[in-house]
């Protein structure tokens, strides 16, 4: 497959904050590509560079062969961008909203009318044609904003946190919609800090932290690599001494790298084997007379990978250090 979005060595600094620090990205045609990272990792900055809203300090990116530096207008013609927080115009009806953006792309009047109808059908807003935009629910506005990125039939869609602020039902609808768009041949870049939603949706992901790509590849591939190392949590019944004894017992087992007691009394095991290995470990533990109350692999796979890859710092905290991410003094 040929790559349709390619970024090489992107660097962007806001005053003293290095938001993107030499980021490389390669997205093949027809993928739903997830950009994952904690808040302030540089996802939004990257997407804004790709969508020509920001000029990188260094490096360049090409979308369908057009450089965001040298031919931003060519990029804009093949690109649909949905920012993470977007507004809607007051005093505007749904069809006028789409009509306005279609005019911005210079689409002739006869095509506009038909296209608006088609798009509203696609995003399931057909009956809302003459409703004022500000009267739509958040999920509907999101879908309308997505529709506006499609007026010029772009090759690539950049969606920054498209699912944020949506209820679960709207999220499912969005996911279906994105799958449908992929089947129409669009390449889609989605950013998110919520992993499970990307895991189900994306064909490939890139994990970003501190403005760099830490891991990139097909979801299955990354998951496979991940199986090599996993975190198990187990609850052992008994007194404190029993739990400590169990911890020590686990350390001696094959493929176990670490074993420690968490504050809530669970034992967390850094485990190096696959699923068979963990089944065996459990059997041995029971066989050794440990009273195992629970035994489980923690978190979803991507999430775990995410935490491990980005855990040079504590996992994504609700209050990131700075909007741009890492602050170099």
């Amino acid at each position, binding site marked *: 497959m040929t790559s349709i979005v390619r970024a090489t060595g992107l*660097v962007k*600094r806001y005053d003293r904050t*290095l938001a993107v*620090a*030499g980021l*490389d990205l390669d997205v093949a045609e027809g993928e739903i590509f997830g950009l994952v990272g904690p808040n302030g990792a540089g996802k939004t900055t990257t997407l804004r560079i790709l*969508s*020509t*809203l*920001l*000029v990188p*300090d*260094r490096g360049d990116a090409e979308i369908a062969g057009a450089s965001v530096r040298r031919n*931003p*207008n060519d990029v*804009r*013609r093949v*690109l649909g*961008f949905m*920012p993470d927080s*977007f*507004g*809607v*115009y*007051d*005093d*505007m009806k749904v069809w006028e909203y789409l009509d*306005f*953006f279609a*005019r*911005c*792309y*210079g689409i002739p009047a006869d095509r506009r009318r038909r296209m608006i109808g088609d798009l509203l059908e696609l995003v399931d807003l057909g009956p809302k044609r003459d409703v004022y935009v500000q009267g739509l629910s958040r999920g509907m506005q999101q879908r309308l904003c997505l529709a506006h990125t499609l007026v010029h039939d772009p090759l690539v869609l950049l969606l920054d946190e498209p699912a944020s602020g949506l209820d679960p039902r709207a999220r499912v609808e969005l996911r279906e919609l994105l799958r449908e768009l992929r089947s129409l041949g669009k390449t889609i870049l989605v950013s998110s800090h919520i992993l499970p939603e990307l895991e189900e949706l994306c064909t490939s992901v890139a*994990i970003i932290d*501190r403005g*760099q*790509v*830490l*891991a*990139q590849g097909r979801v299955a591939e990354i998951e496979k690599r*991940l199986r*090599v*190392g996993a*975190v198990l949590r187990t609850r052992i019944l008994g007194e404190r001494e029993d739990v400590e004894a169990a911890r020590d017992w686990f350390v001696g087992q094959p493929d176990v*790298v*670490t074993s*420690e007691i968490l504050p809530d009394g669970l034992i*967390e095991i*850094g485990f190096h084997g696959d699923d068979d290995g963990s089944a065996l470990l459990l059997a041995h533990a029971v066989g050794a007379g440990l009273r195992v109350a629970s035994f489980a692999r923690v978190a979803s796979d991507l999430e775990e990978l995410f*935490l*491990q*890859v980005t*855990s*040079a*710092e504590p996992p994504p905290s609700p209050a990131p*250090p700075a909007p741009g991410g*890492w*602050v*170099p*003094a």
Partner: protein
Amino acid sequence: MTATMGTRRRFGAVRDVGTGMAAVGVKELRGRMRGKRAFVILTIHLLLVAGFAWMIESIAERTAATGFGSSFSASAEIGRALFLAITFLLTLITLILAPASTAGAISLEREKQTLDLLATTPISSLAIVLGKLVSALSWILLLLLASIPVVSLVFTFGGIAPEDVLRAYVILFATAFTFGAIGLFVSALVKRTQAATVINLVAVIFLTAGTAFIFVFWTAMTGNSGFLPDQPTREDNPVATLTRHPPEALMWFNPFLAQVDVMCGTETGFGASCQVVAGVTNREVDAFDASGQAFGPPRDSYWPRSLLAMIVTAAILIVLSVQLVSPTRRWRLRRPRRAAVPEPAAGPAWADAAAAVATEPVHGAHVEHPASTETASSVDPASPPPPAGGPS
């Protein structure tokens, strides 16, 4: 071949700006003209102008009836008073409405976070700015044109020629354009619409009342007695003149004075409005016009300069606004481009290591240290320093 390509591209660019302006203009006008609001404002505007005209006419009629002066010219006097009053009122309305209707043009897009959506379309910043300005001005234009019938009342009294009305309207349009452009510039410069509105209001007051006050003050400080012009000699150097008389340019952005100059052209003698204009321009007052009758400064001696200054300023402000709106082509005045690029000084040590992590992420992190806490310690030296102890 490249030449033809270039030409086509240039024409294409002009067409693109046209399409973009149309897109923005249609959108803006749709919002502006929706519902009853536009028609309510138009009606109020016309009632105000017409009512004001009637009151001025009543006052002037009474003054003419009781005052001295031949009845032969009394009607013309009423016509002129009416004309001046209505043009002043229209100027005032324009000065208030033009900046007000552009004050939110860009800042509202920023506040509502719609500017990004616009900026990722191929539409140019120039098209955005011009589209907004044209739609705002077309609204003011509608109000001004709708007042023409009321202004035409002056013809029933006489004293004013159709060309004078034309002059007044040219100045009104230029006023709308200039102050619309000022409003737009402030809107692009300031983030909040509320602040933009206040700044615009202050700008209007300063450019009209403020400059007039400075002018009067300056005149007083030079020791001249009021508006009686001090005759300059040809040999004077410009700076030396300033010690005797404030520069005329100070008043160029006061559209009221430009209207007074038009008014001066209608006076047969050396009347009050000509006296004011002569006081500002500081030219000979004993000039005779083409017919050799009028006594005062030559006709059209001042307002074309004022108009030119306003239009040039507006054009400059439009160019600046385009720069402020454009996300990527913005002129970087504050710091040179080089300085914005991070120098590699702090870079290589961790950048290389981080790149290594990027290529072999899971293995590198996992084979040796699967548990997250240990991964942390193993990755730490290789990764960017934490915020506290970063490189400077």
